[in-house]
Every structure is written in structure tokens, then in C-alpha cells.
């Protein structure tokens, strides 16, 4: 962790993430207004003393909506990633450890899934599941699975040929010891790094789905949806699209920077400069 804080990317990433997590834990409590409340007299306003970040087309306070949307947005990213990474890692580890025919079959299927561009695949699944936050989350998780499985598999494969694993095999250790104690602890690093960076993708895809009307549904305060709803009014009050848009960007950037710093901290080459 100290390594991470020492690099500028890590530091900025950590600061941004702290901000985002504070917003998603305390946001709903510190929001000045009910996020759904209309202030019919002050529609589409820029920032003012009453409304720090301005209001949207119904005169709802953008800051309150932003703060209320934070938990949904962040937990979407985390949830989708956790599901996708979890499933992917399990599949990848199984493929990597089993090898041979099992590996071949699993990889073929994954190739099939990877043959579709990510967003396209997500779109198909989410349309199939029928829109909505949970569905979108599942869709993103399913989309992440094959890629994660590949990464987990290659992490396992690269560890599997290390000499300490060979030594364990030569010793006659059981398969489960080898997987759980020798391979996994050393393969988990790349998986965690990848997962962190994927959170930012998940958040962006989630927001994009919200934007396309396939994710969160009104009157949700999910940020992508906020942009979509306000787009019609973007020339009358740019704040109402820029504010949630930047919030998404900042969150994604936080996870990105943090993930990169994490990767550097894990990078074995670092020590040799």
C-alpha cells in the first residue's frame, strides 16, 4: 500500500476513490434535498447558492441526485466485476489446472464468447434479460467472464511451470494443495489488478447501458441515466449533462489509476529498475 501511495498515479487514484467511496457511503445522508423533489420554479439552472451544482429539467437538485446515485453506480461496478471476476477466475483456474481436453473445450467456448465485441455482447444479453439494473449487472458480469477466465488461466499457467510448483509436484503433493497453496496465492496478483481496472469498465458500461435506456430506469439516479435524461436539455443547461458525466469519468479514472499503481506495485521488474 505504501508503494501505491508513493507513486503519483496511486496517490491521485486513492484520493479519487476515497472521494467516491465517501460519496457512496454517506452521499444519501449528506444530500441537501430529496433527489426526486421537483423545484418547478428553478428548472434547468446553473449552480447557485441553493443548488450547488444546478438543477435538471424538473428542477431536481443535481448535487442531491449525484450523491444519491453514487451508491448505485459504484455498487454496480463492484458487483458486476465481483461476479464476472469470480466466475471467470473459477473457470480460468479450472481450465489452467486441468489442462488437456477440458482446457481445450473451455477455451473454445470462451473464444466464441470473446468473438463478439464487449458492448455488443452486453447489449444482446441485457435485451435478452429485459433491461434494468440487475439485468445490466448480470450482463456485464457475463461479458467479463470469458476475458477474466483467460487472464486467470494464463496467470495459473505462468505460475504452474515455476520451479517451486514443480518441486511440489515432484514431492507428490496433492492437486488441491498445489492449486490452493502454491499456484493461487501467486496467481492472484494479476487477477486482482485486472479486477480493479475492470471496475472502471463496468462502471462505464453500466452508465452506457443506462444511457441507452437498457440499464437503470427512471426515476433512478444512476449517473448514466442522468446524462441520458438531461441530454435533450444539454444546450439549455450544460451542467445537467456535464455533472454526472464527469462524476462517471472521475470514478472510472480513480479505479484506473489505482489499478495501474497496483500493477506497478506487483510488477516483479520494478525491483531491478
Amino acid at each position, binding site marked *: 500500500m505504501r508503494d501505491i501511495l508513493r507513486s503519483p498515479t496511486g496517490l491521485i487514484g486513492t484520493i479519487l476513490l476515497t472521494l467516491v467511496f465517501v460519496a457512496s457511503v454517506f452521499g444519501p445522508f449528506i444530500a441537501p434535498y430529496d433527489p426526486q423533489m421537483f423545484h418547478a420554479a428553478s428548472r434547468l439552472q446553473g449552480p447557485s447558492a441553493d443548488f450547488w451544482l444546478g438543477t435538471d429539467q424538473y428542477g431536481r437538485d443535481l448535487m442531491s441526485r449525484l450523491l444519491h446515485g453514487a451508491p448505485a453506480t459504484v455498487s454496480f461496478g463492484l458487483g458486476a466485476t465481483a461476479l464476472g471476476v469470480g466466475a471467470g477466475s473459477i473457470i480460468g483456474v479450472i481450465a489452467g489446472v486441468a489442462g488437456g481436453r477440458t482446457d481445450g473445450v473451455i477455451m473454445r467456448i470462451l473464444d466464441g464468447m470473446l468473438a463478439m465485441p464487449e458492448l455488443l455482447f452486453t447489449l444482446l*444479453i441485457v435485451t435478452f434479460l429485459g433491461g434494468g439494473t440487475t439485468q445490466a449487472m448480470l450482463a456485464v458480469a457475463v461479458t467479463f467472464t470469458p476475458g477474466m477466465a483467460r487472464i486467470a488461466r494464463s496467470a495459473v499457467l505462468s505460475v504452474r511451470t515455476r520451479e517451486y510448483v514443480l518441486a511440489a509436484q515432484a514431492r507428490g503433493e496433492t492437486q488441491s494443495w498445489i492449486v490452493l497453496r502454491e499456484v493461487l496465492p501467486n496467481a492472484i496478483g494479476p487477477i486482482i489488478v485486472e479486477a480493479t481496472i475492470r471496475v472502471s469498465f463496468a462502471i462505464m458500461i453500466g452508465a452506457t447501458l443506462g444511457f441507452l435506456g437498457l440499464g437503470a430506469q427512471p426515476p433512478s439516479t444512476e449517473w448514466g441515466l442522468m446524462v441520458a435524461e438531461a441530454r435533450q436539455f*444539454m444546450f439549455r443547461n450544460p451542467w445537467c449533462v456535464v455533472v454526472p458525466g464527469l462524476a462517471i469519468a472521475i470514478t472510472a479514472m480513480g479505479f484506473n489509476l489505482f489499478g495501474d499503481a497496483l500493477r506497478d506495485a506487483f510488477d516483479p521488474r520494478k525491483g531491478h529498475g
Partner: protein
Amino acid sequence: MSLAYLLRRLGSIVIVLAIVTVAVFGITMILPGNAAIMILGEHATPEALAAMERQLGLDRPLAVQYLSWLGGVLQGDFGMSLRLSLPVSQVVGAAFWNSAALALVALVAVTVISIPIGAIAAIRRGTGWDLGIGVLSYVGTAMPEFVTATILLVLFASPDWPVLPAGGFVAPTEDFGAFLTHVTLPAATLGLIMMAHISRQVRSEMADVLQSDFVRAARLKGLAERRVIWRHALPNSLAPAVAVISLDIGYVLGGIIVVEEIFAWPGLGRLLIYALQNRDLPVIQAVTLLLAVVYALSNLLADLVIAWLDPRVRYA
């Protein structure tokens, strides 16, 4: 690159696409709601619905629908659009070229800009240049297309001082100047993200390569710095960068869906969204298949480019 390798790659593409057809057909067929409902909307009465389903061939067993569809596809016939009263191949074909025009402009612009940018960042590592480019690439990767697009629209296409059109499409064959003004914002949106990815990739590869022994050796041979960079370092950083870019192509193809929707670009992405909303199954199937083919082929192409750049993989 041996013929066997190429054949094997093409073979596996075919297998993968076969999986894709089944998956796509399966998914689209179990989508809730059907095209007949979407066409008739609230004017649907049960008889009208049944009649429409019959007319559209939706009342046949799934397997029959799949096989007849697949048979058609193999002969290049994707059937009729359920919604657009046109053969799917015609609808999708037109959209494909429009998308290709957009993607091509974006790709060319991005490649021309981002490779030198990444290289400069690596060469001037740790300077303001590097920092600036780094920040740009982080911001670029963290902004979903729809946010970038919206911000660009607010900045450049506000009706009060429209610098560029807010969207729409003019065919390059019709009026090339107008095509360029129309393509600028969507291409910039797509490009910003690609640029962030590519320049970052080039930067990190280049930074590694600059540390490598053969670059040292080149310098110690007394070669001019220009030659060291362009002849020794860059070609070696491009191949791994292209490998990563080829993975990004999927991301870009996804980005096209959003960008086209926002900028009203009549390409595959827009068509897909329209088809999804209207349950126009033949169009969904064709677009998905086409995108998968494009994706697979561009990956193959990327591999060929890598082989061209890196003799080590050429004969693998």
C-alpha cells in the same frame, strides 16, 4: 507465417462464428416480445398479431427458422428485415459502409496522432510532455463515449455558435467537405478513447524497448538518435502495441454503437439499436454476425501486421 497457420486461424474463426450464430439466434429468439407486437404496437388485435406473425414466419418451429436462416446466410441471403421492408443485406450493407467510413477516419487519424504521441512520451519520460500525455490518456480512457460525445457537442455544436454539425451523415461520395465536417465529432469521440489506449500502449512498450539491450547496443554503435528511435526502438514497440490494439478493436466496435446513436450516424451501431428496440431479428442477427466477423478478421489482420512488424512471429 505458414499456410497451415493461416488455415488453422481461418478454421477456428469459422468454428467460433458457428458458435456465434447459434448463440445469437438462440438469444434473439428468446427475447421477450416479438416483432409482430412491435410493428403493430397498440393497434394489435389478436387476429392481427397472428396474421402478422404468419406473414413474418414467426410461427414456425425455432429449429426450422434457424436452419432456413442459416441456409440463407450461407448463400448470402439474410432474409427480409421485419421492420424496414427491405432485404437485410441491403439495409446492413449500406449501414456497414457508413460505419466503415467513420471507423476508418477515426482509425487513421488516431494512428497518425497517437503513435508519435506515445513515442514522444516514452522518449521524454518523466518530463512535462510525458505527464501531459499521461493525464490525457487517463482522462480519455475514463470517459465513456457518451460523456465525451456530449461534452464535445456542448462545446462545438451548441446551436448558438455551431462550429460543427451536431450530427447527421453526408456520404463522402456526395459531398466530401460536408462528410468531413459531419464525421469530425463522432470520429473525435471514438478517437479520443482509442488514442488514449494506443498512445499509452505505445508509450509503455517503447519505454521497455528503450531499456532493452539492443537499443543500448544501437546507441553504442554510434547510430544517430533518430535512427535509434525510428529504426530500432519504434518497430519493436509497435508489434506488442498492435497486439493490444487488436484486443481493443472489440471495444471500439462497441463504441461505434453508442457514437452512432448519439451522432445519428446511419451505421451498424444505430441499426443494431433500432433493430433491438424493434425486435427486428434478422437485422440483429446479421449485424451481430457481421460485427463478429469484422472483429475476428481484424484480429487476424492485426496478427498479420504483427507478423509483418516482427519477423520472429512470421514463421511461427
